[in-house]
């Protein structure tokens, strides 16, 4: 069973570049380091976008995020290809992952679009700026469904990969389920305007985003190991 694997290493090594993009965008966006509170009034939100120092940082950071969001797709596809190598009887789990891989980044782009729109004409009616800001934060925070799906399908795929030398080890499955659990509460973020559940709170912002960051790092490493191991096996065209 040979598989054409040319170029996969290049795709894999785009991950560190993406990580740099992502960390710099995160630090650059003035609304993340101290996340904007949902309780801010329309005037406060408008003032935030009108502040000339903020405005430039919002625009540049969101442009970077835009690139990052789509850049994740090749990495997710590499994971799908590893799932295809597993000892499954049907391609169903890899198809399900492929569906999630297209949904997650699309929704991230929608949130990104709303932020950029809010920043495009900050002189707009504050009510409108607040509306774009709400749409952006709700989309960004609550749309964890595809990410949870991704983690659960990876965990299932690993558990059903019943062969002497599985593609990923069992702990990766448990790790994915843990990440899914950490992401889950964020889908209810709109219920709370303040506190840990609000979109600037401990659970919905810090735990959620830390879980995603950790997931990207850990999956990046195990994916790299799996790809390098596969290339050392005989029969793979390198």
């Amino acid at each position, binding site marked *: 069973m040979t598989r054409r694997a040319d170029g996969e290493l290049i795709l894999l090594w785009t991950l560190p570049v993406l990580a740099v993009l992502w960390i710099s965008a995160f630090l650059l966006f003035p609304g993340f380091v101290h996340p904007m509170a949902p309780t801010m009034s329309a005037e406060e939100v408008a003032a935030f976008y009108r502040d000339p120092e903020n405005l430039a940082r919002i625009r540049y950071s969101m442009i970077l995020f835009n690139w990052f969001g789509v850049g994740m797709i090749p990495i997710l596809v590499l994971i799908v290809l590893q799932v295809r190598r597993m000892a499954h*009887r049907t391609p169903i789990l890899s198809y399900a992952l492929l*569906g999630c891989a*297209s949904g997650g980044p699309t929704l991230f782009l929608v949130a990104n679009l709303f932020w950029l729109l809010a920043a495009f004409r900050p002189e707009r009616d504050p009510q409108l700026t607040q509306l774009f800001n*709400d749409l952006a934060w709700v989309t960004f925070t609550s*749309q964890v*469904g595809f990410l949870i*799906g991704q983690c659960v399908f990876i965990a299932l795929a690993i558990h059903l990969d*019943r062969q002497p030398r599985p593609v990923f080890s069992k702990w990766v499955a448990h790790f994915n389920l843990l990440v899914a659990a950490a992401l*889950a509460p964020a889908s209810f973020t709109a219920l709370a305007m303040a506190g840990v559940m609000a979109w600037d709170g401990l659970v919905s912002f810090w735990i959620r985003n830390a879980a995603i960051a950790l997931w990207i790092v850990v999956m990046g490493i195990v994916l790299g190991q799996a790809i390098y191991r596969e290339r050392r096996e005989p029969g793979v065209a390198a």
Partner: protein
Amino acid sequence: MSASATRTAPLPEASRSWLGRVAWHWRYDPKLELWIGWWAMIVFYQLYGLLFFLVTRIQPPPDPSFDVPRIVQWFGDRHHGLLIGFGIVFLITGMLGAVNALLAYSMRRMSVSPAFAYSYLLIYSLSAVPGMLLTCIALVVGAMRPDRDPRLISWLYDFAFMAFDGTMGVFLIGSLVWMAAILLDRNRVFPKWFGYLNLCNALTEVVVAPAWIFKRGVFAWDGAITWWIDMVVFVIYTGVFITLIRKMIVREDFGTGPLPE
């Protein structure tokens, strides 16, 4: 390969208890991946009906000709229902991945090109974003700040329902792709009449289009023709394909043979 190697001895009997049976299927059932997809489909459509009709009460859809104060009141009546109900929708969105994967897999079993399965997978993965999630996001944003400018709440109301009813293209083309695959298939994965039923479903997606033009009457987004008749067709269609997919899985015979590539 490995699966057949471990399966030379006869399979142990399944225990009688419910939990025991689940454990047996988890360990030995060769169709496990298919059943997971099928149960995801059952659970997803049940929850979908429950959440959209009973928890959030956004279906049957409200009147598009409501005036602005009435729209604000509509959001007020459903404040917690919208926030909790759509929270659950966001939580379970991922199940759609398994549902679409199973439907696409049904096409891989057919004698047609894999192009059909991949088109279907792409179209339906795409469809969830405008057809369901954007609607939910707009309604959640509308519900979370009751003190927002009423004109903006009314804009969110239009955005939500037009995104829900008005993104016809994805379901139209998706049904046609499935129809063509079924009619051309020589492996008889599905009966031909289900292929024709796909055409009926596709035609109702055309019938939805006037919802973009009318604010009241039978062609508006809550109309007798654009909503009620179409919903009946959709429920029949969904019920039929859930049953047919189940039959397909039951018929599937993997035995203990080698794994497919």
